[in-house]
């Protein structure tokens, strides 16, 4: 009877192990399904013509997504210019003042900001930028995206710098280096891999954000490089065209989805490879 009991328990153990395996690898299915489906739908749409033309009006086939590509790149560059310096400096502040009262509140705010739904950021950016400036503009979209980037940059900077040994900082200070040179010439260069990976991940995240742009950059069917006017971006174009009833527009949206997906996956994988390489060298 004992042997039977042991067999039963072992069988149960193996059963649950197999169940865990199946459930864990079931998650690969949706990702693969999405990747394959979008590759299949999008690949035939993408060509040179698709990348350098603006969308055609309803009823005409062809056209491209040049306006969305240009818009996305511009909006992201401006957002990065706003968010990266602030984020890195705030991260340095947190790692240099671990125990101060303000640091506690900054850390708390960073956590809160990371969890704020993107649509709420959109509302707030509307009242901070769009209302006072008197109209939808690409710049207000950049501000909204910059707010979304900040917590990721701050956190990754802080986490990276926290791991650096204190002796590094102390040695530099003991040589008589002023504090800001210690930060810029010693601390930040040593931690640059972690900081950069945070920056790249945050760029990857905001590239796909749609909700904050709905009420700020708003979208634009024409090619525009004016930051004070509405501007199209890839996720906005996908959202607008995917929910439209026209097949030509769906085709454009599939092509745009493929480009967006490839870009985001590329950034993620690139970040991973770079950080792995640099970590080995450190």
């Amino acid at each position, binding site marked *: 009877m004992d042997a039977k009991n042991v067999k039963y*328990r*072992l069988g*149960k*153990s193996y*059963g*649950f*192990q197999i169940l*865990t*395996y199946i*459930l*864990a690898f*079931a*998650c*690969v299915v949706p*990702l693969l*399904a999405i990747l394959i*489906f979008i590759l299949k*739908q999008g690949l035939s749409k993408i060509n040179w013509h698709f990348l350098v033309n603006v969308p055609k009006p309803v009823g005409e086939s062809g056209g491209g997504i040049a306006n969305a590509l240009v818009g996305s790149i511009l909006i992201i560059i401006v957002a990065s210019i706003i968010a990266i310096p*602030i984020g890195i*400096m*705030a991260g340095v*502040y947190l790692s*240099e003042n671990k125990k101060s009262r*303000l*640091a506690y509140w*900054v850390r708390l*705010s960073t*956590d*809160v900001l*990371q*969890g*704020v*739904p993107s*649509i*709420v950021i*959109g*509302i*707030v950016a509307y009242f901070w930028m769009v209302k006072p400036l008197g109209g939808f503009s690409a710049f207000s979209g950049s501000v909204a995206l910059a*707010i979304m980037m900040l917590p990721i940059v701050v956190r990754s900077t802080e986490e990276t710098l926290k791991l650096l040994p204190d002796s590094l900082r102390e040695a530099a200070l003991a040589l008589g280096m*002023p*504090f*800001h040179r210690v930060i810029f010439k010693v601390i930040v260069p040593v931690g640059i891999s972690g900081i950069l990976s945070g920056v790249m991940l945050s760029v990857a995240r905001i590239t*796909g*954000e*749609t*909700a904050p742009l709905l*009420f700020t950059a*708003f979208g634009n069917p024409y090619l525009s490089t004016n930051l004070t006017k509405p501007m199209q971006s890839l*996720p906005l174009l996908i*959202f607008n065209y*995917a*929910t439209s009833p026209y097949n030509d527009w769906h085709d454009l*949206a*599939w092509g745009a*989805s493929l480009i*967006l997906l490839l870009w*985001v*996956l590329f950034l*993620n994988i690139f970040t*991973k490879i770079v950080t792995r390489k640099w970590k080995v060298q450190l």
Partner: protein
Amino acid sequence: MDTSVENGMVTRSDLPLRVINSTPEAISKAKKRAKRSFRQIRTENVFKKTLMLMGLIMVILVLGILLTLIVQSLPSVKALGPKYLWSKVWDPVQDIYGAWPFLLGTLLSSFLALFISIPFSIAIAIFLGEYHPKGWLPNFLKNTVELIAAVPSVIYGFWGLAVLVPIVRSFESAIGVDPIGVGIFSSSLILAVMIIPYAASLGRSMINMVPSHLKEAAYGLGATRWEVIRSVVLPYTKSGLFAGILLSLGRALGETMAVTMVIGNTSLIPKNIFAPGNTMASVIANEFTEADKPVYLSALIELGLVLFLVTVVINLIGKKIIDRFTNE
């Protein structure tokens, strides 16, 4: 010394004693040196202040978001009162505002998504944390899970609209409910996929932290692998897993684009989980730019405020639990 640093003047007391009684050239040299180090100290102070200011910006941002939402939703709070949140009819054309359909839609879709995703995320956490912490296969799974989190939500929405909705539609006609396809069930399925990574990656790191002497003691008593997981690993990481699930709930509540695209967007109260509906985030996304009346706009912003407060509270509780767990 502080005063001379502030006004940039070099006084006699700032020079070393042995210089004061020597040649004029030596004095002016010493003055220059003193000036330079004062400048450095000043830059240092300015730099430290700038760092602090950047930190302060984060606090100001959060307070500003909260304040903006409160101020902008005041008109609707005044006009509609607290019963706005549980009034059942939403008809902006006739100035009737009730948020209950959206609250219900948000709760239904988020919790349904949570229930669907929990077994998968816990299985991933156990697989990566306990069965196979190292190797190429777990690495592959880990990267897959991270990529699931990286795919933009608008792409999930588009894929859901094109692939998932027809499947759900045929499933619905098979079990005999209205075959609409779009609705709360579809959006829960999409949401479930999207939130798996959050609980999974947190759960994995928690399971990794279980002390091996506890597990070894259980093995030494003759426990099977499953018994070790069930009576040592899971109880030990209970609070951590709960925090992971809370954080994924926070994501599910605030998720906008994917849900907006597949939930069907009606302001009626959903009759069952297959009916179309609306969540708080999706109604804001759909109607914010169309809101022509001040009360209408402000009612939408009040939804945003509720969403903000709920996600903040959920996230802070989750983070508190994680902090306590990792400090133990």
